[in-house]
């Protein structure tokens, strides 16, 4: 079954035709070319496909594209504005919080949602917010530091 609809992604409206069983991540990557959002498990367990759905992090492999109609979707591609990196992106670069890079997009999106609802999280709160984003490379410490750094700078 096909659905002709539009998706609001990073503030832009994209007309799309999706199949009922298409996941949001599939449409983002394969139809719209927004390949910054990664697929790591397809099972809602690794967080590599994390996008913001009306501001809240969700696994886009666990959302049907058709469900996203009428909602605000944000992906890693929408983070930097006008050529400037988002403060979180800058902090990830400065802290060497990136290794292979495959979890990075999802981490950034989860971190963004956290700082939007809690501008001064504790280390514990940062770690809790990132529990759904697996990283096999970094041991998390730089990622947590980067997020805390942005929170502090924003105060």
């Amino acid at each position, binding site marked *: 079954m096909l659905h002709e609809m539009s998706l609001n992604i990073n503030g832009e409206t994209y007309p799309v035709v999706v199949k009922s*069983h298409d996941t949001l991540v599939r449409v983002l990557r394969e139809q719209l070319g927004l390949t910054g959002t990664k697929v790591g498990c397809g*099972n*809602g367990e690794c967080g590599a496909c994390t996008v913001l759905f009306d501001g809240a992090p969700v696994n886009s492999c*666990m959302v049907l594209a058709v469900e996203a109609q009428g909602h605000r979707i944000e992906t890693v591609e929408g983070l930097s504005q006008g050529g400037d990196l988002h403060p979180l992106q800058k902090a990830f670069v400065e802290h060497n919080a990136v290794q292979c890079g495959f979890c990075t997009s999802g981490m950034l999106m989860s971190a963004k949602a956290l700082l939007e609802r809690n501008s001064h999280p504790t280390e514990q709160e940062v770690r809790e917010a990132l*529990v759904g984003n697996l990283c096999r490379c970094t041991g998390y410490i730089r990622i947590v530091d980067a997020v805390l750094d942005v929170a502090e700078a924003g105060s």
Partner: protein
Amino acid sequence: MRPFDYYRPETFEEAFRLLTLPDKRVMPLAGATDLIPMVRDEHWQPDVVVDVKGLPGMCDVVEMPEGLIVGAAVRMVELMHHPLVNSPRWNLLAQAAAAMGNEQVRNRATLGGNLCTASPAADSAPALLTLEAKAVIRGAAGERRVPITEFFLGPRKTALQKGELLIGVLIPAPPVGAVGTYVKLSRRKAGDLAIVGVAALAYPHDGGHVWCLALGAVAPTPIRASEAEAALNAGHDEATIEHATKCAFDACCPIDDIRASAEYRKAMVSRIARRAIEGVLAKLP
């Protein structure tokens, strides 16, 4: 993923028509956090999925004279933060919601989905058991209410009949002064399934306290530990608590699975029950 058709009805009439389409395997869809992996792995092979999030009341939390009505499609994250749920009366449910999965999952997973999956380890179940909630079930023929204890029939089996929908949960307000605690043990600190989950609730009564205790992941369904409750109702000195945890231990019949052996689960029931009881005691005035 095996293809299916998707509908999002806005009336129950339409929903029941879809749910009873002849010769079709039809499944309701709420948060999709169970449905998508189950379809992907072909454990479920629906021809049609019916998104219930557009149905009236499904996403609402309303206080009624008989208690709190929580729509089946209310998400875990909403339970955590909703002013009514996260109030002294129903806060136990908010605690259970917070213990489930991770941020991304709680932003999608719904209370109804957590219950309809009927996993013995469902985090919301012990809380609802102690709160003596009722499942609100609606079918083409009308609405019925089933005590949550009777809703779960076994792993992945519920009292829902074909064509029926769980539309919400009615949670009576516990007596004034009730406090509750949910304690969960899992392999990882968060984002994991329960090896044992214990919800405890107590409220003042007749100069003493009435206790409710429910156990998750240690039997084919979440269970109430009534002997433990009876023991605690008599008092909560150390010997009674010890006895109550022994009663909780005796009430369980866990299995071995990949997450834990039955042996370990048994050992943990009494320990986690004790933590839940002590958590309640710490909150009692």
